């Protein structure tokens, strides 16, 4: 009986499960370390302030989809003539930590503390020239083969991303393509502008600290 040919996706899924223990270690280590270094801020938060640290391990299908879609991967199709070009190790966010703060005036302080600890490569998320989130990637002490990533983002933006992710992409990672539809991109930008305006207004109204 003829054997079915292994696709690039099959090979990447196998690679994912080889890497999974290391990805988990990196996520746990990174979250613990970030929580520890942010304790001085957590302890002095005002009543209306929030600081939330979460970690996640990218799931297998999201990792495979990430490798062949998105910016710079036009056509969202693997080049089957060159399977050797694809490895999940090239992804920077297999293990990720997100730090969310409200109101966003705390973001700079958090960034300044973590930057001094990690010295990782910056890769900020911007929209129309404005910074949406600080983002860094690099290797942590827990593992030298899987890169980790941490983001520092305002709470409203971070929660919007979570809702978007759980409603759209989580049930079917292929739906990531929906977000790149020209009109859909514009709608997302409008939401993010509105959230930012809300946060800025809130901060303006706060009594001087």
């Amino acid at each position, binding site marked *: 009986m003829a054997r079915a040919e292994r696709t690039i996706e099959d090979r990447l899924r196998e690679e994912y499960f080889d890497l999974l223990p290391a990805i988990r270690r990196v996520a746990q280590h990174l979250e613990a370390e970030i929580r520890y270094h942010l304790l001085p801020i957590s302890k002095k938060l005002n009543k209306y302030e929030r600081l939330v640290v979460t970690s996640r391990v990218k799931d297998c299908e999201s990792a495979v989809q990430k490798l062949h879609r998105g910016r710079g991967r036009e*056509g969202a199709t693997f080049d089957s003539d060159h399977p050797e070009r694809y490895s999940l190790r090239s992804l920077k966010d297999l293990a990720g930590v997100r730090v969310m703060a409200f109101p966003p005036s705390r973001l700079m302080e958090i960034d300044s503390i973590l930057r001094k600890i990690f010295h990782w490569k910056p890769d900020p998320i911007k929209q129309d020239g404005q910074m949406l989130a600080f983002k860094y990637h690099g290797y942590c002490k827990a593992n030298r083969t899987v890169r980790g990533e941490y983001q520092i983002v305002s709470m409203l933006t971070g929660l919007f991303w979570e809702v978007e992710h759980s409603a759209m992409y989580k049930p079917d990672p292929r739906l990531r393509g929906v977000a790149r539809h020209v009109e859909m991109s514009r709608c997302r930008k409008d939401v993010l502008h509105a959230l930012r305006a809300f946060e800025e207004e809130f901060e303006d109204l706060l009594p001087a600290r």
Partner: protein
Amino acid sequence: MRAIDPKQRILDAAGFSYNFDREIYVNRKTKKIFSVDFIEDNDEKTLEECIREGPTGKKWRFYFNEKPPNAVRREIEAVLG
């Protein structure tokens, strides 16, 4: 009424539909394919010029920032039929 993005309006008017699986805009009649990256990186004028370009017969014309590798062309063409 909600304002539509100008580029989306141009693509809609020219009969392009979005394939979210491949992140491309496709017109089967004129056999043209735009990648989302190309649309994002070029202005409306360029987009309209590309749409106006004459037909290429039975061959698909790819408007990508980077020339797509043969295997990628083949697979997209096979999907589109």
